[in-house]
């Protein structure tokens, strides 16, 4: 039922491909550093790695500007990094420090960075979508060409908010793109066990909206599909549903032992890691040189190392922060708690 993407779509330039690759490396190097830091006991947090899913947000963000917005989820650091969110406040945030983009109050599941369009990160499955619609409505009212992307997982396509959001976006012709990162699992539950349709993109039919199932690990296919969806949105043609098939290499949450998948399927997916594959093809097809990519990677590693050092060196927030940002005005202590008995 899912339409497949059109034949006469624009092909990516070498610069575009290298830009997508850059975002992927930034995601992967940053992810690697986060995991290493957690493993060393220096970061305490639930961590939902997106290792293996790098192509999707990299191809998406390549087509976006800083003015375009994203709403993402707990497994969303790759989406933010792809959107070129600066890494210093990201690291300070996941370390729970004052220099964090949320002053340490939100943490990894609620990272926010409006300057680069990272508007909402939610821990509630499905909840990126209804809010993305509102940002898109605001863009329409502004008369801007701004696009909003709602990221979510395959499991989220079974929750009510998905349905309400896609229907509203279609009826209101909102400039929003629903990007489903279908990694085949919702926590430990296989896609097929919870989902009544083979391709989530098929569900677009229920909303009179174009829907495409794309190989989310193929930068060319993703480039093309996103280009089309962004163009539709900017032209006022309304929303698009993109189902991007992928695989998460590191389970649901760090520490997950993957018992719910076969060794074979995991091994097969990892053997097909999009990152080295893309790199090799970039070089083989002459889009970039080995040196160029090595230099890029070194620069990114330096950026990550700097961000990590910055984040870990930042101060912890003081308890007064609990009374701030609840409302615009700081909470007076007596409306707040029985803190007078505090220690």
């Amino acid at each position, binding site marked *: 039922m899912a339409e497949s993407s059109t034949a006469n779509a624009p092909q990516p330039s070498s610069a575009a491909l290298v830009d997508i690759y850059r975002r992927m490396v930034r995601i992967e190097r940053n992810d690697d550093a986060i995991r290493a830091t957690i493993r060393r006991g220096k970061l305490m947090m639930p961590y939902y790695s997106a290792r293996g899913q790098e192509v999707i947000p990299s191809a998406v963000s390549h087509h976006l500007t800083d003015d375009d*917005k994203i*709403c993402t989820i707990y497994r969303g650091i790759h989406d933010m990094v792809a959107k070129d969110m600066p890494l210093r406040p990201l690291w300070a945030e996941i370390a729970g420090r004052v220099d*964090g*983009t*949320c*002053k*340490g*109050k*939100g943490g990894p599941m*609620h990272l*926010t*960075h*409006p300057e680069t369009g990272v*508007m*909402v990160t*939610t*821990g*509630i499955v499905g*909840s990126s*979508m*209804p*809010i*993305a*619609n*509102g*940002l*898109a*409505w*605001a*863009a*329409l*009212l*502004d008369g801007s060409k701004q696009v*909003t992307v709602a990221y979510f997982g395959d499991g989220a396509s079974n929750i*009510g*908010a998905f349905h*309400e*959001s896609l*229907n*509203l976006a279609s*009826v*209101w012709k909102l400039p929003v793109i629903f990007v489903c990162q279908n990694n085949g699992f919702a926590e430990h539950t296989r896609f097929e066990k919870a989902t009544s349709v083979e391709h989530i993109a098929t569900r677009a039919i229920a909303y009179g909206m174009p829907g495409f199932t794309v190989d989310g690990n193929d930068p060319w296919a993703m480039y093309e599909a996103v280009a089309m969806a962004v163009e539709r949105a900017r032209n006022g043609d309304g929303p698009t549903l993109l189902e991007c098939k992928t695989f998460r290499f590191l389970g649901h949450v760090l520490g997950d032992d993957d018992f719910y998948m076969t060794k074979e399927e995991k091994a097969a997916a990892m053997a097909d890691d999009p990152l080295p594959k893309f790199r090799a093809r970039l070089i083989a097809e002459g889009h970039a040189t080995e040196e160029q990519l090595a230099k890029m990677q070194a620069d990114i590693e330096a950026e990550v190392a700097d961000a990590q050092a910055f984040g870990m060196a930042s101060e912890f927030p003081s308890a007064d922060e609990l009374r*701030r*940002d*609840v*409302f*615009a005005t700081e909470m007076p202590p*007596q*409306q707040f708690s029985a803190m007078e008995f505090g220690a």
Partner: protein
Amino acid sequence: MSEMLKMNAIQAINAAMMDAMAADPKVLVLGEDIADPEGGGVTGTMRGLSTKFGEHRVRTTPISEQAIIGAAIGAALGGYKPVAEIMLMNFTTVCMDMIFNHAAKLRFMSGGQSAVPITIRTLTGAGWQTAGQHADHLEGWFAHAAGIKVVAPSNPADYKGLLMSCIQDPDPCIFIESAGTLFVPGEVAADQGPIPLGVARVANEGTDVTIVTWSSMVLRAQAALPALAEAGISAEIIDLRTVSPWDREAVFASVAKTGRAIVAHEAVRNFGPGAEIAASINEELFTTLKKPVIRLGAPTCPVPFSKPLEDAFLVSPAQVVAAAKSLMA
């Protein structure tokens, strides 16, 4: 002083919306049936807005409350001030995630980066025999939630002034319209402007007993005044207007004066919002109180359909009188 107009709460809400939308192009409206082709809202509170300001700013939605509040939040993050209608308060239960986990928390979770200046208007209240799923007063839930203000007016002037303040407020507000107050006419100044949130109103001055209340229960407390007077009891009625954050100073000042307090609301008494106020009065004025604070509220059951049961469900003026007498005894 400006001309006084006679109007009911519905008209007052409409007037607030007209003023707010005219004054600020960022104010938006969304909800089921709220544009004029659909009647401007089921009680007509939004009538005329879409005709005057356009359906791009005043949008009728599908029956999709999560999408409604989500769109309001998103538009707020995009710089607008949306007024979202959830037709009845019981339907907040289908979009509670959007209200509680998102609207109320985004400012805090983002460390102050995300403001969500939305107003959620919602109607509720017993008295119309709409039974178990259409009349619950859930202000206690929202008051318990950090990051959202809870406003519950009792009279047309407050309806207008408080709604204007909610719309302008930088934080999310839930604005509760209660059935019992909706068609009661009152005087509203032609130029009635915003009334500050968090400030109570003395609805009746008195010296013997303080009755802390809000929303529809204010009218029932006022209805008790003749009988109270007859019994020789001078009752001070404090209309909180804003349930959270509530006006602690006004309440404590009155109870310090009277030494006796009744907290009364339409919501269920058990684990209800009155408990916070009663507990706080006890904390602050333990030695001043002549008698323990009495809490009046609905019994612990769903709103019943049958008229005599619905009548028994609501706190009656007679119960207020009985409570006051017991405090004076």
